[in-house]
């Protein structure tokens, strides 16, 4: 557990970057610090590993005041990931990852073998081990950064906008892998971002900071969306809060209707027969995975990939209400496609039924 107690940082010249911040970051959880630029989120992060010393207040890690610890020892116990990775350009991928183990005095062979394991863990091909960072893509560099921070298996990870420098598709990939990794490792993570969507996606708890480094609200993402503490937090959260909040509610009991399907490649007559007058017909592959919708009456020949309408999203049974509702809203037939964990079709659900489920949810009372 990391505990900040009344932590203040005033820079020479009198600007307060952080003011009277008290915050507890529970062990094994992801705490996201989010806020506009100038809210002191990075300063706060760097005070935890003493790269910046607080002007007043104390920071405890597992009950020990960090001010009483040797900064080098403290830092080697905390993985640190920054935007772009901050990799050593003059060291190979493997040697970058082995940095902290070598500092801790492990022998070279053990450090390298652990580094190779970390590469695998973060999804880097072993062929990249001898490359230099400038030979890697942005996403790969970021993975090396994460692997390097994890190498000595520190209980704490400090991450400063680690996924900001990559394009949106890669970012989402990295975020998903990061969550999977955390489910496996259970580190105590402090994560800084300016992106509220990232905060909501990744955080077990989210601390919204305002300019000047005061805590505006500390809450779980669902609670934050449902009940922002003030106008600042509400503005910062942005639009569609109700809809986004549904991402945190599981949809267990939706009435699922069976859906007639044709296999890709079926001829037009089969499609029209199966549709039995329905405007849209669901097309699946041999493994029963949904591919898209067709309008049988418009078909001039067989059901081909070119005839598919792919606008509909697919939700997983037992997934969130948001995914189920979006599947229904995005489907041209307005029937939302539900699949099981292996991606096989289970049936469809209607927006109405999802809404009924939403209304059945106990209403939160404003606190």
């Amino acid at each position: 557990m990391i505990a900040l107690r009344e932590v203040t940082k005033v820079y020479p010249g009198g600007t307060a970057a952080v003011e009277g911040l008290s915050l507890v970051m529970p062990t094994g959880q992801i705490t996201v610090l989010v806020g506009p630029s100038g809210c002191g989120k990075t300063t706060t992060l760097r005070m935890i590993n003493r790269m910046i010393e607080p002007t007043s207040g104390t920071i405890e890690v597992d009950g020990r005041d960090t001010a009483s610890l040797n900064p080098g020892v403290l830092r080697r116990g905390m993985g640190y990931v920054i935007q772009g990775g901050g990799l050593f350009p003059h060291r190979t991928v493997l040697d970058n990852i082995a940095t902290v183990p070598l500092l801790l005095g492990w022998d070279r062979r053990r450090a390298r073998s652990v580094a190779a394991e970390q590469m695998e863990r973060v999804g880097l091909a072993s062929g990249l081990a001898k490359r230099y960072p400038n030979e890697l893509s942005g996403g790969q560099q970021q993975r090396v950064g994460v692997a390097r921070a994890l190498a000595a298996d520190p209980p704490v990870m400090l991450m400063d906008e680690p996924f900001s420098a990559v394009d949106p598709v890669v970012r989402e990939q990295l975020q998903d892998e990061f969550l999977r990794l955390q489910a496996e490792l259970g580190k105590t993570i402090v994560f800084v971002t300016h992106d509220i969507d990232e905060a909501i996606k990744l955080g077990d708890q989210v601390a919204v900071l305002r300019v000047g480094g005061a805590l505006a609200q500390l809450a779980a993402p669902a609670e934050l969306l449902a009940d922002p503490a003030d106008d600042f937090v509400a503005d910062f959260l942005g639009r569609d809060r109700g809809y986004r909040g549904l991402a945190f509610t599981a949809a267990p009991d939706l009435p699922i209707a069976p859906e007639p399907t044709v296999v890709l490649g079926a001829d037009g007559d089969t499609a029209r027969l199966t549709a039995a007058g329905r405007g849209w017909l669901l097309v699946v592959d041999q493994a029963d995975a949904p591919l898209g919708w067709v309008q049988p009456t418009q078909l001039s020949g067989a059901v081909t990939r070119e005839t598919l309408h792919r606008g509909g999203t697919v939700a997983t049974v037992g997934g969130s209400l948001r995914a189920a509702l979006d599947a229904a809203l995005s489907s041209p037939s307005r029937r939302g496609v539900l699949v099981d964990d292996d991606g096989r079709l289970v049936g469809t659900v209607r927006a109405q039924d999802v809404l009924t489920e939403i209304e059945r949810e106990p209403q939160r009372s404003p606190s």
Partner: protein
Amino acid sequence: MKWFVGHLGQVGDLLVTHALLAVIPLIIGVVLAIPLGWLAHRFRWLRTPLVVSTGLLYTIPSLALFILMPLVLGTGILDPLNVVIALTVYTVALLVRTVADGLASVPDEVIQAATAMGVGGVRRFFTVDLPLAVPVIAAGLRVAAVSNVSIVSVAALLGIAQLGSLFTDGFARNFLDPIVVGIVACMLLALVLDLVILVGSRLLTPWTRSGAAA
């Protein structure tokens, strides 16, 4: 050409002396310039005075410096130590700024990451900052090497034997051959030193040659 063939041994000896007189100060100069450059980089207020004052040293005419050295050091006028120390001064003059620039070229986020991993102080300087400054320092070193080769020859006026002696000798005897041989030998020496530094720097910085982002 005939003169050259007949004096091969003599030219060879002069070349070796010339090379030593140019290279030894280069090595001592780098060793001295690194801490000075570090000071100029580390303490902002020191940068201007250090860079300007060492840079000014380079404006002292070489002949004057060679003549001054025995007076300052108490050495004999023919002592090669005069040349070594004078050229060390020039090397330092050229390299302090280069070292400071090289250290400043190390990306901030790399230093940050190093610090955050507990790589600090002297260890960080030798394992992160200095290796990353090598390309910039090597570029300055190449300039200093060529400059040294050229300045050494001036010491011939004081009677210190090296390739420059061929110029004074040829001039005194109104004989062109040794002068031409001296010029060519100086140029070759400068080229070889330049190449050695270039290759050495490449070997020290394999990462700079690896391709662009995949």
